[in-house]
């Protein structure tokens, strides 16, 4: 329990730092695209913390703006995709069986495509760019949410509290919103966090290949592509810093997602313990259970 709380703390700290960087990025948008050939390819130093790229743009400013792009697009796509996925899961869980069967097959078919390739196909179909890339990523997120939440929603419908709600004649939408959605809480929050990481990775992959955000935009994946050309001649900083930011973001979000179930369980246990009469020492209880 303490380990997962420490883990959640580290994740929260990392995320807070990234949010600060993203906010800083909002004020550096001009600096991030300002071409200054005279100061091109400068190594990291006091003037330019992360150095400058081939066109003399400040890499730190670009990484900071990239952070705000990544966080905003990651959260937005997961919110939209997760919402749609939740909706499908509720239809599957509470709707007629045949509809569930059809939807599950369809979801499985969509999930048969590796996320990056499906997102790539959708992005290409609607025309290259950051916005279409976001659409492509949403398409990959929806089935992930729908599939995991559907299993939980199905389980919820066999729980006594849902059956009781049915018995007293509550409407299906009411049951879905008031009884099933809260039941999905932990799974939903884990999925939300875990998918932000995946989404940010896929988005940067798309830009890296060249279908996502296009070059002047300081998107991490696109920056790494640019950095590749300079890497062989020794200007490592152009590609390394955006990737480092990307790595830290995904790791922070994954750490958070990984610690959510334990932290939530501990919180719930604490709440129930407080509301009941004092109980024996948990260590002794564990030892007793063992014996």
């Amino acid at each position, binding site marked *: 329990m303490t380990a997962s709380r420490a883990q959640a703390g580290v994740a929260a700290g990392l995320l807070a730092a990234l949010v600060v960087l993203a906010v800083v990025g909002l004020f550096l948008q001009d600096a991030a695209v300002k071409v200054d050939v005279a100061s091109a390819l400068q190594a990291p130093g006091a003037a330019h913390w992360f150095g400058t790229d081939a066109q003399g743009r400040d890499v730190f400013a670009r990484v900071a703006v990239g952070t705000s792009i990544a966080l905003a697009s990651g959260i937005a796509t997961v919110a939209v995709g997760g919402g749609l996925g939740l909706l499908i899961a509720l239809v599957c869980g509470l709707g007629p069986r045949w509809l569930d069967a059809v939807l599950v097959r369809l979801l499985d078919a969509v999930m048969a495509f590796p996320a990056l390739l499906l997102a790539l196909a959708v992005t290409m179909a609607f025309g290259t760019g950051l916005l279409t890339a976001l659409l492509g990523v949403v398409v990959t997120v929806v089935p992930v949410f729908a599939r995991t939440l559907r299993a939980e929603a199905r389980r919820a419908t066999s729980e006594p509290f849902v059956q009781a709600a049915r018995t007293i004649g509550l409407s299906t939408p009411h049951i879905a919103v008031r009884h099933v959605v809260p039941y999905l809480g932990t799974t939903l929050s884990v999925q939300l966090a875990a998918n932000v990481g995946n989404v940010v990775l896929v988005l940067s992959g798309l830009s890296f290949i060249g279908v996502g955000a296009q070059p002047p935009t300081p998107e991490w994946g696109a920056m790494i592509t640019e950095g590749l050309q300079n890497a062989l001649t020794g200007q490592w900083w152009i590609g390394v810093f955006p990737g480092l930011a990307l790595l830290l973001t995904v790791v922070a979000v994954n750490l958070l997602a990984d610690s959510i179930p334990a932290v939530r369980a501990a919180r719930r246990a604490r709440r129930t313990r407080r509301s009941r009469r004092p109980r*024996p*020492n948990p*260590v*002794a*209880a*564990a*030892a*007793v*259970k*063992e*014996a």
Partner: protein
Amino acid sequence: MSAAPSPALPALSVEGLRVAYGDVEVVRGVDLVVRPGEKVGVVGESGCGKSTVALALMGLLAAGGSVTGGAVTVSGSRVDYHDERALDRMRGSQLSLVFQDPLTSLDPVKSIGSQIAEALRRHSPRMSRAAVRARCAELLTAVGVPEPERRLRQYPHEFSGGMRQRALIAVAVANDPAVLIADEPTTALDVTTQAQVVDLLDSLVDGLGVAVVLVTHDIGLVSEFCDRVLVMYAGRVVEEVPSDVLFGGAAHPYTRALLESLPVPGRPRGEDLAWIPGAPPPLSALPPGCSFAPRCAWAQPECSVGTPPRVVVSEPSVAALGTALHTAECRRALEVPRG
């Protein structure tokens, strides 16, 4: 395999065994002597430490648990619980374990034959394949599994619960151990199968001369199967009693209360079963003095002060039996009317 222990030596002797999980002591000084061919029962409520005693003797306590005191001797040689290799040599060959739940006690992806053979090969590495196979079949026959050749090739999911427990007993006796520790061997089985497994254990004691320590919460089973019964409460043996005097002769108030709470067929219907007020104390916060005092109908103020004395309730009638003493850890043991 060691030579058969001389009849004078106990098969298993435990003195002052203490086990702790972290800071909490769950077994607080247990003495136990089992002679070759003897059947000793250990009973108590869940949480009294009886299963911990079984695992501690095997040296297989769960993570966090450790033996913190006492001396254990198997067939005359002292067990060193810090020497893992020596323990590995002892386990299965001198001391064996039959576990609670036959459904989860066998590896689901290995054949029954290979799981019995594993016990044989471990202690007789030079045995030929054919000899191992023959011995496995012989063991299955001995524990009452028909068609052993076919059954050896099968997997646990193809065995019923009772058959699995038989296979596990075959594993346990594969190397002719001196002592078999059976931890709730019948709890997970249905009643008719329970009787068969008990009969099987009985016949093994007669046939192989193995000593059995039967750990269970089932007083009825113990009184029927065992020569002697140890009653445990809060990590201590509170009464040691020959099983033929258990009903009607128990001296410790806790043992009496346990016996009274047994449902007896034929008892008038309306009558309530007796029950013990309160719950066993948490082992991390034991009451001072006798641990049972707060729940005891016979408790007096002095019961909550100091360790209760071990009182000899009756000397063995035949001097030769030596250990078949009836003792209780209660200062009022001789005053409490025997029920």
